[in-house]
């Protein structure tokens, strides 16, 4: 499945300053592995030692928070847009 991933500024040092990258993956977990394959070192920023996404990072598939979907097991389809967004405050 070809998906587009939107990379937040702090991680663009891994992606040669690219704000968006295209990768093949059938789930969010697979996508994380695919990102590590293409951009070595990025996984340890995204996930803690147990492989869980860091709690201050939000991941959205087509604008939906994966916590409302199937978390890291959320399936991805061709053309999906995945965005990685650090948590922010406000109101």
């Amino acid at each position, binding site marked *: 499945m070809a998906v587009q991933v939107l990379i937040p500024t702090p991680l663009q040092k891994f992606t040669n300053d690219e704000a968006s990258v295209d990768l093949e993956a059938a789930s969010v977990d697979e996508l994380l592995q695919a990102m590590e394959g293409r951009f070595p070192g990025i996984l340890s920023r995204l996930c803690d030692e147990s492989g869980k996404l860091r709690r201050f990072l939000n991941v959205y598939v087509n604008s939906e928070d994966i916590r409302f979907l199937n978390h890291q097991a959320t399936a991805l389809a061709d053309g999906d847009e995945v965005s990685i967004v650090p948590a922010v405050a*406000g109101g």
Partner: protein
Amino acid sequence: MRLDSWRTGSSPGRRQGLNQYPIPRLGYFHSHHLSLLASTYRCASSVTAILSRSTFIGLRCKECGHPYEAGARHVCEDVCFGPLEVVYDYDAIRSRVSRATIEAGPTSIWRYREFLPIEGDPIDVGTGFTPLLRANRLARRLGLKELYIKNDGVNMPTLSFKDRVVSVALTRARELGFTTVSCASTGNLANSTAAIAAHAGLECCVFIPSDLELGKVLGTLVYNPTLMAVKGNYDQVNRLCSEVANTYGWGFVNINLRPYYSEGSKTLGYEVIEQLGWRLPDHIVAPLASGSLFTKIRKGFDEFIKVGLVEEKAVRFSGAQAEGCSPIAQAFAEGRDFITPVKPHTIAKSIAIGNPADGPYAIDIANRTGGNIAAVSDAEIIEGIKLLAETEGVFTETAGGTTIAVLKKLVEQGKIDPSESTVAYITGNGLKTTEAIASSIGEPFVIEAQLASFNSAWERAQSLQRATWETVG
């Protein structure tokens, strides 16, 4: 929504020639560098002349402690993505500040400027130092002995506590070289950012959910920013803004300026201490949206204790949410220290954040201080607004109604002791959310301009009032 494309199209977000962290400031902060840094910036030179007025040193990750320079950044990008926090030189603060110096300062948040992360002159629009009201009638109604209302519904210039955070954020934005400022907002923040940007002559583009109350939309548009009403809830607006912040290089008060922005809320802690006659209360109740305000009131109390301005004492922290958006209250009730995001559905739109970034910290504070986090229904929120208005003459918006309703609930449940000195934080003004109560507050008696017409209407009014009292019992 109107879009002045010429404004955003022609205006570079930042001054040319400035890199992402334009001012070399003080480099990376390490604790062992503190004394070196302190002596460096006490040396006179054209740069350090400004720096010598500031008491903050840099940023640090709240989770892992990793240090960063004091630029426009908000997450721990080198390690764990935790939120960044401002680091101060408390020895320097202690040497400069006393109760007397504060009391001699301006009647705004800037009387506490040594505790705020700015270097030069502040943007002072009279923000802060709002009334702390001894609320005897509400206290009697609830069965409390010593209750105070901290009324930020009359904060300046836009009638909510957000003026505090925005005054700090925009001062810092200007120092960092931003010429366009922005925010993702549930309404109050948009009002405040647009107003203070107008005063400071900064370009402004703000983002709100498209279903906001009319008063909050008009109260932004009047300052002539570019206003984007996004079809979605606040969390979706925020996600979009994170992506805009990534690409446009603007100063987003609640995103890349967040470490500075959030510090403004500490002044709600300082002012209560000063207004109580330099003492801490026993218990505070505040609304929880992202959880930031709650944690910063705590930080404000802690800092005044640390520099010796107030005697240390235990203060219980209780938080208020609306049932229709209560991810923090739910986690607290279930004994969790992590937040499961929710999709908001409540009239309390100003606090409808389904994915609250500082939720885990708010839970931690409530637990550590022996406080509580509770949620109330929309009907209770409306009753809370009416109760505060009828007993104290303070007209608050839905967030304040939530706080009063939770205050009432906690007293009824025995979770606030009647003898505790308690402060309820009212964070916004009711005139901005009149829709919320329009159908719940009765209507005027329409009469002819004749005494007879008045007489009969007065008769009706009296019997209606008797009926109300009978139901109240």
